[in-house]
């Protein structure tokens, strides 16, 4: 039996990525990183800012996401996100811009704990990337 499953990443504009030969996906779920293998139980969760790693037969892809929802059902993983960047293609300046944006947000927002936590996460991840 093969150990592969299907993953699809969609953002509002288009279907961003679709792969059929995926072995493992690691997503930054809200309560910690989560690795998903074939025949995982059906799950819905949402994402915090972080890195999505897709291990497939054809190699490994890494993406930076700011938010999103994951749904896994019948060996079909869908990731819905409104902001996603491929780390192989993204330019350094863009990352720095994002970091700056996040820091501004952090400095001005007197938001509740949850949003604060998300922003801190974002900054941390971006710093580690830069």
């Amino acid at each position, binding site marked *: 039996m093969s150990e592969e499953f299907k993953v*699809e990443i*969609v*953002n*509002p*504009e*288009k*279907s961003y990525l679709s792969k059929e030969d995926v072995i493992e996906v690691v997503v930054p*779920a*809200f*309560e910690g990183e*989560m690795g998903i293998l074939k025949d995982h*139980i*059906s*799950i*819905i*969760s*949402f994402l915090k800012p972080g890195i999505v790693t897709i291990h497939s037969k054809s190699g490994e892809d890494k993406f930076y996401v700011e938010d999103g*929802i994951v*749904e896994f*059902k019948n060996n079909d993983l*869908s990731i*819905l996100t*409104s902001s996603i960047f491929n780390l192989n293609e993204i330019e350094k300046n863009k990352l720095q811009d994002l970091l700056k944006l996040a820091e501004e947000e952090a400095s001005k927002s007197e938001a509740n704990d949850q949003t604060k936590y998300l922003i801190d996460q974002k900054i941390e991840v971006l710093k580690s990337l830069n």
Partner: protein
Amino acid sequence: MASLDDLKKRIASVKSTQKITKAMKMVAAAKLRKAQESAEKGRPYSEKMNNIILNLSNGISDKENVSKLLSGTGNDKVHLCVVMTSDRGLCGGFNSNIIKKAKSYFSKISAEGKEFKIITVGSKGNDQLKRVYGEKIIENISFKESKNANYFDADKVGKMVIEKFEAGEFDVCTIFYNQFKNVITQIPQAQQIVPLNNVEDENTSDESYEFEPDEDEILSNLLPKNISTQIFKAMLENSASEQGSRMSAMDNATRNAGEMVDKLTIEYNRSRQAAITKELIEIISGAESL
């Protein structure tokens, strides 16, 4: 009858108008292809989002404490209508169709003795509505600067709707837009987004999900996103409809201008002929009288 010179000028002016409408048609056709493409590409996202919410709301354990965005406030007094139109004119009946749909909804609501408030998206809708419903319009947004419909604009509208909902300014929210069917047909739609209507129950599975964190938290996070997504979908459909509508309107205009040029040319030739005949008669009768 108009003089030869006048006719000539009119023919020239109709011809140049025809050139403009033709050019606009070409531009609309090119934009339409792009808009249609992005409308189609945007569909999976909103569909998936809908599915997840459907699965979630079925699996939810505590129906009482569920987010108000899903269940409604329990009241049905104040309706918020988000009327989405274009920023540019010359697109046939595109804007009027939406306005017509919205107006009939307004009168239905007022007949039931309920209140309504209006948010207009796009300047054309605002222009048409403010004459009659000026005092009902609480907000007007226009995205003239953005070339294509993008998610951030939709998110802005969505956040505004949610803010107003949380402030208790309305109970029911409906968006008005044109659904793109094909180039000639666009269907004006009224879609209720708050509270969410769970109508399509047929394709839900009984499969239970594991949730992390729990359902309520996911739902309360997801529902605001869903509103932005629905608005974004409406924007995409709208922009495809707008281009389609403009294309067929400009196609008609070009054809009409062609007909007009033909008619004017016949008239021009006829009066030219008449003038020549008249001059000839004058010369001949002059020669005869000698």
